[in-house]
């Protein structure tokens, strides 16, 4: 057993061993997967040891964060961190989250009621550093030490006892990337403290003040989206090629002709997909097109930069980038004169645009002027309208539903997807817990796209562990690989995480599991479709 309870100040010390190590024996058991048969843990390699500060848990999420070389650089880091924290506590620099931050820093009673909610903490075997409160306690100690009179006067008596040096900053930066920001812990706090959002605040400080962020989230994420047009790197011209390819491919596979409408002024709906769908799951935007056309919906897509990629990675770490993307999306919709903007199957993008954006978009861009919605209610409406005939028997295989945290726990969109499944998937069943209490897929807050160094190993082994266990439990009577099974995950990021852990746990071979969105299931059950739409061989 390697459960460690490192004192908080270890985060700032020269260590010989990581504060915690991941070991198979400690990890939570998964139904149907013997730990001995699991992909073994890769030991920490020399490249990591020689290049990075790897003393948090031996895994590296921030592959772009190299230790400072000089004393000046070290001091500069500390100076910037403190200036960032000062801004975080300032009503003008941090109006977006100040109330949440301050109440969270000042009134946690350290009862640890929140801990058992956290899939990361539980799946790790209750490794102390992953407890929802651990990382926040470190921030609180720094805050007390530098920004409160009692901390300055009384020091460790009031808990102001963590040294701040570059190691503290680097390990804390890693540690806030061991939280999916799923906010499940916040549902349980008797005081209303939100350790998920507090972890995000640390990420905001790092990103907005020091430019520290995983490459995939900032440099190759928001930055790429805002300058090139999409975090996938797709330019408007490349997008055109992709869409043409999807149109042709769909025709070849299904015999259905689709044409993605682009920049159709005055359409009722502007549909924005996560551009990752075009690249990784083209059958998803194609299914939307098939459904919308069959239902006679007036819709369009945009090929304006940013307008064809719904992602908003600022949601995870940066209010400036979040605001930029939200504004751009809204303006594109406004220019096209659409009645509403609908986000495709992507949870974080939906929340960023509909919920967070609601307090960024004002006046003529406010909700009352241009409505912003999730696609899920629309999909249920398509079914209810009767415009399309569905044959549920075409979906005669076991299905379970994953609730993306951002659309369900964070937006309260619970029933539309269930209503659709009740209507078209006779063998669907819930996983447990579900709805607003569901567990994160393990890919939340950017983890699904973070593929550098050994971080995917941590994600698959720890943060996605609860989800694979939930999925297998949902199918526990039908684990036999002779029965194909479908995990319906109406969210691009969740699909990214699921794709990776299905591979990691060999779910195709062992259990014949596949995954996809809700629209694919809908199209699969359309009476007018001559061939099955879901392909069981690929994922």
């Amino acid at each position, binding site marked *: 057993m390697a459960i460690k309870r490192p004192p908080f100040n270890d985060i700032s010390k020269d260590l010989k061993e990581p504060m915690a190590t991941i070991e198979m024996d400690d990890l939570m058991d998964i139904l149907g997967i013997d730990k001995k048969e699991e992909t073994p843990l890769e030991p920490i390699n020399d490249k990591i040891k020689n290049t990075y500060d790897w003393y948090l848990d031996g895994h590296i999420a921030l592959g772009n964060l190299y230790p400072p070389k000089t004393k000046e650089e070290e001091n500069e880091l500390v100076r910037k961190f403190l200036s960032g924290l000062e801004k975080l506590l300032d009503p003008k620099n941090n109006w977006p989250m100040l109330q949440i931050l301050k109440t969270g820093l000042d009134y946690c009673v350290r009862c640890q009621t929140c801990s058992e909610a956290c899939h990361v903490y539980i799946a790790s075997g209750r490794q102390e550093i992953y407890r929802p409160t651990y990382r926040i306690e470190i921030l609180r100690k720094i805050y007390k030490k530098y920004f409160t009179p009692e901390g300055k006067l009384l020091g460790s008596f009031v808990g102001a006892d963590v040294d701040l040096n570059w190691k503290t900053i680097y390990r804390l930066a890693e540690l806030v990337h061991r939280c999916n920001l799923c906010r499940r812990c916040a549902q*349980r706090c008797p005081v209303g403290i939100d350790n998920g959002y507090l972890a995000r605040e640390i990420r905001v400080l790092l990103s907005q003040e020091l430019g520290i962020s995983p490459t995939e989230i900032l440099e190759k994420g928001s930055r790429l989206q805002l300058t090139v047009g999409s975090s996938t790197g797709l330019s408007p011209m490349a997008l055109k090629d992709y869409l043409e390819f999807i149109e042709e491919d769909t025709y070849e596979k299904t015999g259905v002709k689709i044409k993605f409408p682009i920049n159709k002024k005055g359409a009722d709906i502007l549909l924005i997909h996560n551009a990752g769908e075009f690249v990784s799951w083209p059958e998803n935007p194609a299914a939307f097109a098939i459904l919308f056309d069959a239902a006679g919906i007036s819709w369009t897509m945009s090929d304006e930069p940013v307008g064809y990629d719904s992602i908003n990675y600022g949601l995870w770490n940066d209010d400036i980038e979040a605001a930029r993307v939200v504004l751009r999306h809204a303006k594109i919709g406004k220019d096209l004169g659409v009645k509403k903007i609908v986000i495709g199957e992507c949870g974080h993008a939906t929340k960023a645009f509909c919920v967070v954006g609601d307090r960024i978009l004002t006046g003529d861009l406010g909700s009352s002027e241009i409505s912003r919605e999730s696609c899920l209610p629309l999909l249920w409406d398509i079914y209810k309208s009767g415009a399309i005939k569905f044959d549920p028997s075409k979906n005669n295989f076991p299905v379970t539903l994953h609730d993306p945290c951002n659309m369900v726990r964070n937006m309260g969109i619970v029933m539309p997807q269930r209503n659709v499944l009740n209507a078209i998937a006779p063998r669907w069943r819930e996983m447990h817990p579900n709805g607003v209490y569901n567990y994160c897929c393990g890919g939340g807050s950017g983890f699904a796209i973070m593929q550098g160094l050994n971080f995917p190993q941590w994600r698959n082994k720890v943060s996605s562990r609860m989800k694979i266990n939930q999925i297998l439990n949902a199918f526990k009577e039908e684990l036999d690989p002779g029965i194909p099974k479908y995990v319906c995950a109406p969210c691009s990021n969740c699909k990214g995480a699921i794709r990776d852990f299905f591979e990691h746990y060999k779910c195709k071979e062992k259990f014949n599991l596949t995954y996809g969105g809700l629209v694919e299931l809908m199209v699969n059950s359309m009476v007018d479709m001559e061939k099955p739409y879901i392909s069981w061989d690929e994922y």
Partner: protein
Amino acid sequence: MSQFMIYFAWFSVICFFVGSFLKLLKINNMPLHLRAELYPVVHDSKNSYGGSYMEDMNYVEEVRKGLKNIWVNDIIEILREVLFLDRVNEYNIYGLWFPSLLLHWGLYILFGWLFLSVFSVFWPFYFLIQLSSIFGIVAGAFGVLGSFILILRRIFSQELRLYTTPLDFFNLFLLLFMFLATLSTFLFDANHDILRYLGSVISFKTVNVSNFVIVQFFLFQFFLFYFPFSKFMHAPIKYWTWHAIMWDDALTMKGNKQDLILQEQLEYKQFWAAPHAIQGTSWAEVATNLKVEERGNNNGNKKTTL
């Protein structure tokens, strides 16, 4: 009894009310935050399963027409936590619920005791005095037991100990001694001095009272004075963390109050210093601009992204 205790009594009461009020006012007056609701949002009519108005197509229209929010649910849910510590009961695995419940009820009853005692000074009915004594004894017993078990739990549970600061222990010991003193006043038959003490505070006239009563009130008054500056404030904070943050699902409509507040906040200057930020510009400016060198780099034939 010295003049000090009289002035300290008034000072602590003023501190308790004014200090708490100012603290809460400060929190209340913080800028309007981004929406950060977390479901179930209890006032939503679909709260039984955690649903929201965003489950409906054209929800903006529905909001415009007026949602059927059940606001009383916000109060009920807060009260359930304040009175029964529901979440702690359901989810805490460190055995904190029962002692916390005792401690919380000890405090509520202690305030009840004070209230009844002050009443008894003006209307010294036998029944009222007896009732206040019962309140005092029960409060003392609950509080002593609750705080004592909590101290033990925090010492002997490795997990809790890691997180418990000396200040947290100070707070618990303060409560323990305060309740112990309250109980002692009754156990050692000094309680008849309570009304004399309160009468002297009200009339500003010193009287001689038992040392038990002096210690009891000294600790209680210290608690009142200290309350606004301490974590004890976590009780009223729930109104903000829950009602004003986690359940705040209010939609921004053009021209409504919220819209105007946000427009003002978007004009705040921000000074974030990362390379992609633009220091010294307003939020509205930084959100609609990229740095000059980043513009027009979109590989295609389209205009700049922002």
